[in-house]
């Protein structure tokens, strides 16, 4: 049996939660003071996910960086793989908010999209 200690992000309480688990099976969640904490802890131990936000290079635009995000969450352990792909990416202006910048980043099934408009230079 493994245990993990987490800080709950459900509210400012920040309960220190202990999760006991074997593989994908949660045995016990303790330290939480409400159901939100229980749900958060189970998910965080089995399938932690995050949204990644960064910028990509944009050429020919009125600025040199375009802000982007993963349209949904990706597995937490893929954050740096995702960043590598984002860092390699370059797009040309104009770009509209919501435009797909990277399709299916790192095979996660999640697209990276533009979060702002970039007009053409000049």
């Amino acid at each position: 049996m493994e245990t993990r200690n987490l800080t709950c992000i459900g509210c400012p309480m920040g309960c220190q939660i202990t999760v006991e688990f074997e593989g994908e099976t949660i045995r016990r969640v303790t330290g939480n003071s409400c159901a939100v904490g229980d749900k958060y802890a189970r998910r965080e131990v089995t399938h932690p996910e995050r949204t990644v936000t960064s910028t990509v290079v944009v050429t020919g635009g009125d600025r040199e960086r375009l802000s982007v995000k993963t349209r949904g969450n990706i597995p937490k352990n893929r954050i740096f793989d995702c960043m590598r792909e984002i860092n390699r990416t370059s797009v040309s202006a104009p770009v509209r908010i919501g435009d797909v910048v990277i399709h299916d980043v790192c095979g996660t099934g999640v697209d990276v999209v533009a979060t702002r408009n970039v007009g053409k230079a000049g």
Partner: protein
Amino acid sequence: MYDVVIIGGGVTGSAVARELSKYRLNVCVIEKGEDVCSGTSKANSAIIHAGFDAKEGSLMAKMNVRGNAMMDELTRDLDIPFRRNGAMVVCVDPAERDGLRTLYDRGIANHVPGLRILDREEALAMEPNLSDSTVAALYAPTSGIICPFILTIAMAEQAYVNGVDFHFNTEAEDIRKENGIFLIRTGNGVYRTRCVVNAAGVYADKFHNMVSARTIHITPRRGDYCLLDKSAGNLVRCTIFPQPTKLGKGVLVTPTVHGNLLIGPTAEDIDDREGTNTTAEGLQNVIRKAGQRVKNIPMREVITSFAGLRAHEDGHEFILGEPEDAPGFVDCAGIESPGLSSSPAIGEYIGNLVRDMLGAGEKENWIRKRRGILHPADLSFEERNELIRREPAYGRIICRCESVTEGEILDAIRRPLGARSLDGIKRRTRAGMGRCQAGFCSPRVMEILHRELGIPYEQLTKCGGESKLVMGRTKEDEQ
């Protein structure tokens, strides 16, 4: 070969350069920093002292009183702000009264005009925020406030316009004399010159001792300061001093010529000639001691703290002129307070000395008037609009705390001896000196420096050398 090489582009070196630019001489200033006013001159109390403090008959007393008297005309010629706000030495203990009298007598001996001893009521009537325990005060109406950056920069600019060379990032390493010619070895080659002016601040003893057996010794004496927001600038009208001690004039409380409130300095002898770091203890002392003479100092309004060094020579006296055993080598050493106040007088004194030594004649076309950086805020609505129509850059505010426009920043870059760094811009225009301390304007000033001077972002600096502002681009490794 130069007739004169001045080591150091601080306020003394710049004042001497300006004086020498009046004569038919080939003059160069070598400065280890990337700009003038990069050392001792950049961090001090910014006071033009009246001159009651220095010992009777000393060079300090003579230069201070003369320098003070020269300020009105000089600042008009240089087109820089200067205000005679007066000074008060405030006595908070009846036992200090005798000391106040001694100071008054010394001031009279030094020919300081207008000195008066005020009783408690008079002092409090003039300065309601003086300590409740105020007993009496010495009032010196001729004391003034100035911006040390602009004074130095303006004198250097005028020297430059009148033909003096300025070589920055040029640190003197060694001085020798061969066949009557001085050879100054620097990181940028050897300078040959008939005469050397040693205006090297805290390093002046090092250069002096290279050519003279009559050694001198300078101790960097550090002083911590706190600068408060303009909202605190009206707390006092005069510069408020305690009674001087052998370590210096003590912690003063003063408005600045730009309307902030400045408190400091402490006095601590250190070894490091670049030791301009503040200390927790020093800052606490500043706060405590400032509060002994002035009440209600709103310490929450501090916007920055800094430390400056005084070039304290063991004899506590200006060393001006040639050592007996080193003709042609002209010292301006031990220039600590009242060095800023004395700078025009030192410039004049050394200028005359060098002129006579080299037998130089006056230039006929010496340019006396400098045009300062235009401050649109001083213009009327219509004038300002006319200016913006002509130069739209004056319509764009870059530093919102100090209301500095892009036009002023461009002027600071494009003018003679123009700014090349963030601090260079700051000292010329005040962009970044306000309450947000450059948080808002620094990316914008960086963009202008990059665009105007073609300096890549990665090479932009705060103040030259390795003071790089950014460390590369995002994404650059993978692209």
